[in-house]
Structures are given as structure tokens and as C-alpha cells.
């Protein structure tokens, strides 16, 4: 087993000594190196192979925030455990949700610290693990510690600034965009490099939402954008001509029984192909299907799989075929449709045809 190197950063020498002594029992798993502030910690990081950093936030010379900011650009792969004496369980829970980093309350329980170190080291060796501290966690620590500062955040070719006064986010800007819109964008950036300066020139508040809300909404908007991009990417690859060909075949099979049919993207309900397109019916089936999925998932029942059928009053029948990201709905005249034909011929043909068009 390879012995890992842990760097513990704190300005209290006796505390560091007691931690080093206490953690000596884990010498087979990891060895401990110490530093009294961020500046010393950076020297250690520059000169040794460090697998994990455990740091306090409040230190003279160079504090934990400056160290974390430096690590975000220079050592983004090293996991971090933050120690602070001013947190609450609610803040801890929020912070844990925001990223891969761990958070510990002072005074420390040595066994808990050892467990957290072991967990962090184990998970950091997983290929799916995101290393280092996230911007969201960093911002919440700033709020918790009531910091006044200006953050410059970089991610790929983007750059933005976040301004804090006594832990309150006052303003955000990226390019020509300012305020909530800029904050919602910046907080969701990935692989960020952070620079921190303990000055803030902004006096007037330009942000209307609380930080926690900005973080949640920022991530939601990012997920939504990613989903739309993924659907748009698939649509570009989809052979719509082929889909229309299959719809034509199905129309021939079902004859007058087929009133209308639409294939739409579940993310936005936009129709991709259809016959007698009925946007209202597509939106309705999209909504009903999503509600079915929610109800079934909530009840931990068998998941909805290939399709659902609704027999409606007024002699109408609806079938909705479910594919990843796309659904295909058909509105039928129940007096004219034969269920055997629908389920044994039309459904398999539609499924095969759709999959061929997607993989074309």
C-alpha cells in the first residue's frame, strides 16, 4: 500500500503538534506534514507530493481562502478538508452538497478527522471523483466567514468578478453582464481558477437574490442548458427524413384510425416530426407522462418503460411511446383502431424505425 502525504495547515503550533502525534497511529496509511499559514503551505505544495490538504481558514500572513484560491489554479486536483470553528450543522450540510470537499468543526475529534482523511483519500483515487474545492463551496465559506473581498474567477476563456462585503455578495460581472444574471452564470462554471483580494470597491448592492438561491438556481439553469444542448446535438444527428418515412408507413397501417401523431423532445416539448401535428396533444402527453414518472418513482414501483395508453371518452385512444429524450404520441379513433395491430405491428415498427433514425 502506498503511503499518502497529508498537509495540515493551522497557525496554532500546539494544535499541529497534537494532531501530528494523534495521527501517527495511521502512519501505514498516511504521513503528516504541517505548515503554519498559507504561504508556508504553498512552499510545501511546490516542493513535495501532497495528496490531501487539511486547512484552517483564519491564519495570519496568508489565510485559508488565499490558499484555497491558489490551489484552485495551481493544484486543482488535490482534495481539501476545511477546518473552522464558526460553522453550523446547516452550513455543513449545504457545503457538503456543494462539492467534493469535506468540512470539519473545531475543536476537532481526532477519530473523525482520521476517518475524513481516509474517506477523502479513498474517494480521490476514484476516476469519477472531482478534486479540489468547488467555487460554490468557496463562496459559501466566504459568506460564513463574513469576508470582504473581490474574487476573480476564470474558467476556460471566461472571466468574471464577484464582490463580497462582510460575507454578502454585492455584485457580479462577466463581460458586459452584471448583477444576478452574471452571478447565476459564474457560480455554475467548472474547473475554475480563483484569485482573491481583500478589498471590495463596490458599495451599492447589485444582487437581488441570496447566495444560496443563486447557487441553486445557477446549477438548475446550467443543467437545463446542458440538457437542451444534448437534445440539440442529437437532433442534428437525427435522420428526420427517415422519421417522416416511418410515420408515413404507420399512417398506411393504421389508415383512418390515426388522427394525429407527433414526435417531440421531452426537454422542451418541441415537435420534430409528425402528421396532422397537434402541439396541444403533444404538450398534454408530455405533461401526463412526466407526472406518471414522478408518481411511479415516488412510490418506488416498476419504472415506466416503453409506452402508456389512455382510453379516452369521445372514442379516442392515445398511445405514447417513450424513448430517451424523445416521446412519440399518437391520437387514434378507438372505434377504428385494432389493438392487436397497434401493439403487435405498429409499436414494434415505430420503435425500430425511431432507433434506426437516431443511430443514422
Amino acid at each position, binding site marked *: 500500500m502506498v503511503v499518502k502525504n497529508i498537509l495540515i495547515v493551522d497557525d496554532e503550533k500546539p494544535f499541529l503538534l497534537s494532531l501530528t502525534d494523534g495521527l501517527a497511529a495511521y502512519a501505514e496509511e498516511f504521513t503528516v506534514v504541517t505548515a503554519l499559514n498559507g504561504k508556508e503551505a504553498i512552499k510545501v505544495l511546490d516542493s513535495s507530493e501532497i495528496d490531501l490538504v487539511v486547512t484552517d481558514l483564519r491564519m495570519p500572513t496568508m489565510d485559508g481562502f488565499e490558499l484555497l484560491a491558489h490551489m484552485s489554479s495551481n493544484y486543482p486536483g488535490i482534495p481539501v478538508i476545511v477546518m473552522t470553528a464558526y460553522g453550523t450543522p446547516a452550513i455543513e450540510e449545504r457545503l457538503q452538497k456543494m462539492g467534493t470537499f469535506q468540512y470539519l468543526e473545531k475543536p476537532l475529534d481526532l477519530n473523525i478527522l482520521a476517518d475524513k482523511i481516509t474517506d477523502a483519500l479513498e474517494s480521490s483515487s476514484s476516476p469519477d471523483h472531482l478534486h479540489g474545492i468547488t467555487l460554490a463551496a468557496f463562496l459559501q465559506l466566504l459568506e460564513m466567514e463574513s469576508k470582504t473581498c473581490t474574487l476573480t474567477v476564470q474558467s476556460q476563456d471566461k472571466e468574471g468578478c464577484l464582490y463580497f462585503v462582510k460575507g454578502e455578495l454585492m455584485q457580479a460581472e462577466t463581460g458586459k453582464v452584471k448583477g444576478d444574471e452574471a452571478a447565476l452564470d459564474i457560480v455554475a462554471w467548472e474547473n475554475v481558477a480563483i484569485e482573491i483580494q481583500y478589498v471590495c470597491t463596490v458599495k451599492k448592492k447589485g444582487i437581488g437574490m441570496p447566495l444560496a438561491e443563486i447557487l441553486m438556481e445557477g446549477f438548475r439553469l446550467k443543467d437545463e442548458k446542458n440538457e437542451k444542448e444534448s437534445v440539440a446535438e442529437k437532433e442534428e444527428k437525427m435522420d428526420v427524413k427517415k422519421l417522416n418515412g416511418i410515420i408515413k408507413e404507420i399512417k398506411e397501417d393504421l389508415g383512418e384510425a390515426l388522427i394525429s401523431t407527433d414526435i417531440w423532445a421531452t426537454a422542451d416539448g418541441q415537435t420534430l416530426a409528425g402528421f396532422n401535428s397537434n402541439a*396541444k*396533444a403533444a*404538450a*398534454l402527453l408530455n*405533461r*401526463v407522462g412526466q*407526472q*406518471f414518472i414522478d*408518481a*411511479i418513482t415516488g*412510490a418506488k*414501483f*416498476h*419504472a*415506466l*418503460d*416503453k*409506452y*402508456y*395508453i*389512455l*382510453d*379516452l*371518452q*369521445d*372514442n*379516442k385512444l392515445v398511445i405514447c411511446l417513450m424513448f430517451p429524450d424523445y416521446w412519440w404520441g399518437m391520437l387514434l379513433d*378507438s372505434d377504428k383502431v385494432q*389493438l*392487436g395491430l397497434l*401493439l*403487435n405491428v405498429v409499436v414494434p415498427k415505430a420503435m425500430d424505425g425511431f432507433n434506426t433514425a437516431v443511430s443514422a
Partner: protein
Amino acid sequence: MDIKKLNEILEKVKKELGDGLLGTDIWVAADGQAIAGVNPNPKASALMNRMVNITNEALKDAKFPLLGKYFLHHLEGEHIGMTTLIGDYRWGMLVDGTKAQLGLLLNVVVPETMEAIKEVVSA
């Protein structure tokens, strides 16, 4: 209401569908409480009852015709969940799609059983 008769009707369904029938219940639409069943599954009855309500609400909002006789879901593991609407009552069943024939189910078992249940509940 003749509950014994309802249970007999469901036993007949079991006989017709054999191993294909995983469970079936008849419940009151108002509260989702089951009054008869074979391999009863109260959780499934409550869920299906909720799904009838969800569907009808969405249909009503969109000014579409409401649910008629039934709705059917193809579920993972080739299971079929089917719920039929009989006045103030609902009859639901969970079927193994690899063992039960859908044609027999939809064209024979369902119409006959719905008629028989209707007779008992409206007596």
C-alpha cells in the same frame, strides 16, 4: 355489495391469465381503499388511483376528453399495469407481459370482467 362475488370474478381472471397475472385489486375511487383482490397490492392500488386523478386533471386542464374505460402502462421487466374505470370503482391489475397475451387480456378478459364487476357494484 357482494364482496364474495367480486372475489370470485377476480379468481376467474386469475384462472384465465394463469401465471401471467401478478396481482389484481378492486378499490373505491374516492379513497383508493381495496375491497377485493387476488395477490392484493395496496401500494399499487393507491398509486394507480392517484394516476387516474393526475391524468384526468391534466386532460381537463387541456380541455381534452377525460379517461374512458382504462389506461395501461408498459413497465420495466415487461410488466403491464392496467387500470379500468367502473363508475365509482377502479379495477387494476399487474400482468407479466411475457406470460399473458395482450390480445386475450384486452379483447376478452377486460370487457367480460368489467361487465361482471359493473353488475355487482351497481346491484
